[in-house]
């Protein structure tokens, strides 16, 4: 069964009489247990899509099924989901501990299990040092970890994360990403995330969808979408004794001791290297520069 089936969904907004199409005829299937990334520039429709999935917005056309059921007719599905963003806020006057307790009650976590579950999250997300502090006094990193703890309080089957590491220090962001992977592995949670950090998406997501002005432009595994747009990659080699003319005949660009060549994805690097060695060249250093998701993102927006 699919975790999420987005079927021909359209959503528009009106602003001072002008119509803005946030989503246009969007169809995406997300498998159970998948970490699925939604990419796109600002205004692409990423957050609108998440809001349609969690019921904060009603699509104008099409429908969304979560675990085979339409949200409009089965609101109880929301209890199996959780939804947070980097900008999530809680009541300023409550401590982190009280916030988690409140959400335990709201999601009907059995009383006997509450303490154990909160303790588990405290330990996993290393949030023990600020559990008694009021929400307003927490730093950005502490808030995001608390938000993530809240998002896991009901052991969701579907987790929607909108920019989960926005504004975090790198060390905290790494911990948060690790936790996201752990959650999927431990509970087989389906995770749908949006992020502006391409390396994060590359690291976390099994598949991605690229949205542009509300339309689906591309979908597939990170590797697939990249190779669909870039059929070559670059190899950079430093050699001790470069001879310009023979190297150029071999297809290399020569700049000082550094030579570069564009290779096709299925081309064998070892073959290129062995030709150099046979030609009597001494290899000092080598770097393979494959196109990143960031390169893909930039190319898609052109």
């Amino acid at each position, binding site marked *: 069964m699919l975790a999420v089936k987005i079927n021909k969904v359209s959503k528009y*907004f009106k602003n001072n009489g002008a119509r803005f199409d946030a989503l246009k005829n969007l169809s995406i299937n997300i498998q159970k247990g998948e970490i699925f990334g939604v990419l796109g520039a600002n205004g692409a429709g990423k957050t609108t899509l998440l809001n349609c999935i969690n019921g904060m*917005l009603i699509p104008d056309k099409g429908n969304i099924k979560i675990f085979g059921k339409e949200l409009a007719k089965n609101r109880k599905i929301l*209890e199996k989901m959780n939804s947070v963003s980097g900008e999530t*806020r809680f009541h300023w006057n409550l401590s982190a501990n009280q916030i988690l307790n*409140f959400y335990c009650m*709201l*999601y009907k976590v059995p009383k006997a299990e509450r303490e154990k579950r909160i303790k588990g999250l405290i330990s996993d997300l290393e949030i023990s040092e600020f559990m008694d502090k009021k929400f307003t006094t927490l730093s950005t990193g502490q808030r995001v970890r608390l938000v993530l703890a809240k998002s896991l309080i009901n052991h969701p089957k579907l987790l929607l994360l909108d920019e989960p590491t926005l504004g975090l220090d790198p060390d905290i962001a790494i911990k948060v990403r690790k936790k996201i992977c752990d959650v999927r592995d431990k509970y087989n949670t389906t995770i749908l995330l949006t992020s502006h950090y391409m390396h994060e998406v590359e690291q976390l997501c099994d598949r991605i969808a690229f949205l542009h002005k509300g339309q689906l432009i591309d979908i597939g595994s990170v590797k697939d979408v990249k190779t669909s747009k870039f059929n070559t990659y670059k190899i950079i080699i430093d050699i001790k004794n470069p001879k310009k003319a023979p190297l150029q005949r071999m297809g290399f660009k020569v700049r000082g001791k550094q030579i570069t060549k564009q290779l096709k994805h299925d081309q064998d690097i070892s073959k290129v290297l062995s030709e150099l060695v046979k030609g009597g060249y001494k290899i000092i250093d080598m770097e393979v520069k494959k196109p990143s998701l960031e390169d893909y993102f930039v190319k898609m927006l052109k």
Partner: protein
Amino acid sequence: MRFHKIKALLYRDFLTLSKSKQRIIESLFFPLTSTLIWGLFANYFKQFSVETAMMLLIINVFWSFSYLSQSAANLQINMDVWSRSLYQLLVSGIHELEYIIARILYSVISSLIILGSMLYITHLFGFQLPALLPLLYLIAATLLASTSLCILIVALFVLLGREYAFLSWSFLQLIILLSAPFFPIKTYPVWMQKVAYVLPHTWIFETLKRLPTEGALNINLINRSLIISMAVLCIVLPFYIYVFKKSKKSGQLVRLST
């Protein structure tokens, strides 16, 4: 209806209240000082007319009670918006009805506590409390009138946006203005009389105005208030549900809650 969600919200609301001395003082300060002021005035006015003095005193108490029982719920909703925590509540799967019921229960509990204190103060100034059952009936009718008003205000707030938060503390004033609190309905021009007749608060105040002279609460007048409130409730509840649905279509709910 899922009671665990209502219970969770009540837990959070009373927890936030208990953690803010300022809010506790604020919610007690105005109703209690106002009752004291009117109590002192009644004491002075007794020399002219005991009935009028007692009428003014008890009407003021129920005016404050009406305001508290409506505004406490509305302000709690405003706080969810101001703290930007409303979004998290709504995505937890809470139903709009569960949400409003929790807020109404909160306001009923907190305003009843304050009403008890205000009635005690009026007693100190010589006001003789009417029989318990009719009094409880009047309190229930007042709560119902305030509740239907509260739901209407939430619906308008969701529909129009956070700039209209002021309705929470000002809308009742308009209702009171049209409900002839201290004077006969006939004081109004004809068109205002027509409006007054269909407002539930008019009949609550009418009951209270007649209390000192009749010596008991007029059940027929309370019935009238209750029937009007129920009719209002039958209109505002579907309107409230409709507004939530509409705001999910227009994106207004996301704008309001984040």
